[in-house]
């Protein structure tokens, strides 16, 4: 039997609007860390039912220090006022999770794609999925300690981004850095929308 939650787990009774941003990226790129840095509650994990076969094929060899893989979604939330809550969904980028992706992307303001400068190629599948779904996105390089620092123009080109797609560097462990990445994404989304 599930027990009642403590009052701090609930959003304010005055909330009348919610917004959703998807934090996407390849396996092990720091999505959960990013969500946790922004969220006012510890990141929450949920899992959709997936087949065991697909659960076994994740590439654990690439990030040997990570003993488990995210087969579900980690999410967090932040009040942006008494009446507005932002939900961040950190989501696996593999095409085999597409059924979950489609549900997550409906109604999303946009997506922030985290990339690992040591493995830019791992991001191509996610970028293709977002483009196919016509979801606007910005890209943030999660600058891991000891990872090479490439000029942003080179990364922009390596990822074959459109000229207007924002690209920045962030540290997923730092709250202020994550907030700036979200602001850059949202500024871009606001520019994209046609003015009345």
């Amino acid at each position: 039997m599930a027990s009642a939650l403590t009052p701090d787990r609930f959003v304010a009774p005055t909330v009348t609007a919610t917004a959703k941003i998807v934090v996407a990226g390849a396996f092990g790129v720091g999505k959960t860390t990013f969500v946790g840095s922004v969220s006012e509650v510890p990141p929450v994990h949920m899992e959709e039912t997936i087949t065991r076969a697909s659960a076994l094929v994740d590439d654990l060899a690439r990030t040997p220090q990570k003993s488990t893989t995210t087969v579900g979604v980690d999410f967090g939330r932040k009040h942006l006022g008494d009446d507005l809550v932002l939900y961040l969904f950190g989501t696996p980028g593999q095409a085999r999770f597409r059924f979950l992706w489609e549900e997550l992307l409906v109604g999303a303001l946009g997506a922030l794609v985290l990339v690992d400068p040591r493995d830019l190629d791992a991001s191509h599948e996610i970028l293709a999925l977002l483009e196919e779904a016509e979801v606007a996105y910005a890209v943030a390089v999660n600058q891991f300690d000891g990872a090479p620092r490439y000029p942003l123009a080179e990364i922009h080109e390596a990822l074959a981004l459109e000229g207007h797609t924002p690209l920045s560097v962030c540290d997923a462990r730092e709250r202020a850095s994550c907030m700036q990445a979200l602001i850059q994404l949202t500024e871009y989304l606001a520019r994209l929308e046609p003015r009345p």
Partner: protein
Amino acid sequence: MSRPRQDPDLVRPYVRTGGRTRPSTDVRLESVVFAATGTHPGLNADGRRLLALFAGARGGGLAVAEIASELALPPSTTRILVADLIGLGLMTLAQAQDADRPPVSLIERVLHGLRAHA
């Protein structure tokens, strides 16, 4: 020995929702819902568990995703259960969600809020 033909964990969500795979109301993972208080005779076990989460809510709400995580139910199942409770008048949505694309005004509000909290 014959083995079960299907994994019971894969069957249960479908049974729980009476065979439905889509919610009757547009309930999304980020939809915030508020719950009625008190006891509701005739409610099924999942409905009771779900409402029990809100015993300490003091009027506060939860997103459908948070409910799914807390009850360890698949999000798709949780959406249907929440939609049922809304249909029974035992839960209310914080906002009507009728657009697949968020309005520009929401983007502006989020941008303003992010800057204010940066």
